[in-house]
């Protein structure tokens, strides 16, 4: 009769898959995390880089993106891809509008004072979260993925949609980079980031740039959320983790550095995927936090940040 023998392995993790496939799965999971994280953190980094504002409400824009994606995709019937495509356009635009209004109603009135804006964005965090709870409710609601193709590998199955998230995120990052480095809007943003007063002296409408950047930052978070929501449902508390991870990424990568943000996001995402699969998710969080502490001690400007002038 099987099962009479004592099993010493009870409670410990049994390693069953071979190392190669195991690592592949870990890397895939890590890449998905990285992709979403890079977009979210880029928004945070952009807002800090240009406006010197630490936006604590950034995670709530992420949540708002997911909640609106649910609202849009449920309102539109037909093939799930249609609803999802509509959500991918409408949700970020609405979130951008909310951010634009918040910038105009709150941050501008505070003259972008670094300390006051932190407190103000904490307030925005709670307002947005509670509004979502009031009008959307406490449930986690699913959004149907635009397609549900399951990639069958010899060792395990993997969601094709998850891989498409990585691709979409990479494309969006390239577009952001092109906008920042190759267009006039990008030039204006970079000029404002480099020296606000000189930029103003050259006739750049700094306030309008700020409003635009704040909206774009929130929209990046919203796009990331729309991409992730078919994988993990929309929930009014879902903004907390991305906020924390975005801060970790932005501190490691260097506030305001696009390249640093992307590199740090890939680093954190992959290490999170691999460490949590081979060891434990808690250890992955511990290590990420430890890296942040080390970076703050030995390279406060971040890996790719420039030292303050």
């Amino acid at each position, binding site marked *: 009769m099987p099962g009479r023998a004592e099993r010493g392995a009870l409670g410990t993790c049994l390693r*069953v898959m071979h190392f190669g496939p195991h690592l592949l799965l*870990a890397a895939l999971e890590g890449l998905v995390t990285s992709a979403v994280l890079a977009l979210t953190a880029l928004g945070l980094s952009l807002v800090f880089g240009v406006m010197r504002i630490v936006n604590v409400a950034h995670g709530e824009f992420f949540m708002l993106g997911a909640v609106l994606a649910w609202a849009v995709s449920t309102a539109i019937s037909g093939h799930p891809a249609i609803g999802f495509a509509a959500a991918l356009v409408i949700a970020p635009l609405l979130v951008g509008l909310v951010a634009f209004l918040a910038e105009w109603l709150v941050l501008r009135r505070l003259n972008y004072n670094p300390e006051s804006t932190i407190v103000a964005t904490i307030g925005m965090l709670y307002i947005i979260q509670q509004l979502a*709870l009031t009008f959307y409710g406490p*449930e*986690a609601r699913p959004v149907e993925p635009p397609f549900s193709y*399951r990639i069958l590998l010899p060792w395990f199955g993997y969601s094709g949609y998850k891989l498409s998230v990585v691709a979409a995120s990479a494309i969006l990052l390239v577009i952001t980079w092109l906008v920042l480095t190759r267009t006039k809007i990008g030039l204006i943003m970079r000029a404002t980031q480099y020296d606000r007063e000189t930029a103003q002296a050259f006739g750049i409408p700094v306030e309008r740039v700020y409003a635009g950047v704040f909206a774009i930052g929130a929209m990046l978070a919203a796009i990331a959320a729309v991409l992730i929501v078919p994988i993990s449902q929309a929930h009014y*508390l879902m903004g907390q983790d991305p906020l924390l991870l975005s801060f970790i990424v932005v501190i490691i990568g260097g506030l305001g550095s696009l390249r640093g943000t992307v590199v740090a996001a890939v680093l954190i995402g992959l290490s999170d995927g691999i460490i949590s*699969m081979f060891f434990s*998710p808690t250890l992955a969080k511990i290590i990420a936090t430890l890296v942040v502490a080390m970076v703050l001690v030995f390279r406060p400007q971040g890996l790719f940040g420039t030292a303050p002038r």
Partner: protein
Amino acid sequence: MADKNGFFDLSKTTLSRRTALKGIAAGAGLALAPGFVRYSQAQSSAPIRIGFQSHRTGIGAAYGRWYEKTSAAAVKAINDAGGIGGRKVELVIEDDGTDPARGAEVVNKFAKQHKTDIVFGTLFSHVVIGSAPAAGENKIPYFVVSEGHHVASTKLNRYVFQPGITDVKSQIQSMAPWIAANAGKKVTQIFPDFAFGYDHRDYLPPALKAQGADVIAQIAIPPTESSFTKYFPQIPAETDVIYHVMVGPAVLTFVKELGEFYGSQRPQLFGFMDSLEAVDINSPGLEFLDGSHFWEGSPRYAQPDDSAAQKAYRAAVGIDDNGAAVGDPKDISTASHMFGCWETLYVVKKAMEDAGYKGPEDRAKLVEATEALKEFAEGPEHPQGPKTFNGKIHQCFGIQNISKVEGGKLKVVHKTKIEDGLYEPEGDYTKQAL
């Protein structure tokens, strides 16, 4: 704003000392006059106030909403039939944020500020464990609907009761024979990494061992986790059955990712309905669940052999044949657990009437009257089924349902007996001082 006309300047009022005295005397006379006091015989006709510790926010919010709906329906039914001992019942609701520290504050608030007669309604086990000491200190009876083994373990205190829903240890013990006989002998467990999950972790292996089956791996997942694929490689390849019980807002992701990982090549699945409470089993990505089995406290879908009491209960709470809110098929209930609120409130009614409960000074009598209860017959007050109650460990025992997913519905394929879930008491609350 300037007070130009001196409306608020007290020195200019023309109220004389005599007028003031007259007013006070008249007021005092009114207050003393019989009939002015709203409930003339003090507490005998004032409503009984039940403090409802609700998970309105936090990871338990989906449950909290349905617990409130069910409790409101039960209170309405009780009141329509004359209340408790002729007095109306009133729910006073406070949100605990599904947080143990906040839970203890809420119990204190009920005892000291709202001065409710009892506290009731908590689900999440870590909140119950965090709040129980506050109930003991305030000597206020605390009726939970939590499913965890913590009440029956006798590690809490004499004021905590669970008379409306069975505990995990009993559930596991009564279902283990079925799992070993029908699903498989090598079981991998996936459970949330907190108190409720530990009940499953601790009681499943011995229960299966007694049936000649084995738990070959145990995977604990933090309750706030939002992605799960990374845990699945820990499932041993020789696993016959995955025994899963997850809670919180990400349960759908958990089941979906399990499906993506295995596809149709999956081991047998045996889940606790907790993994899918408030989630539509026909959600996209859950097709692979077809043919798998679930524990259900009370069936989500109406069954052909439903009793009249079960039908009346479903109508009163407002759920349709698919276990969704009447009028909103997407609003799925937490049917496996919320019946416990209904039944607990009827136990409270019975115990209060037995004790001749008048008010907070009779709380000790209420505790003793509850401990004296022995069984609850199946019927409108106990629609889930008959139950026995062990006053020493403050825990009820009842039947469990094992349901199979078939054609997008859950069909009950096996019902356990009350005796299957009985175990030796681990202690005796009645020996504690009141």
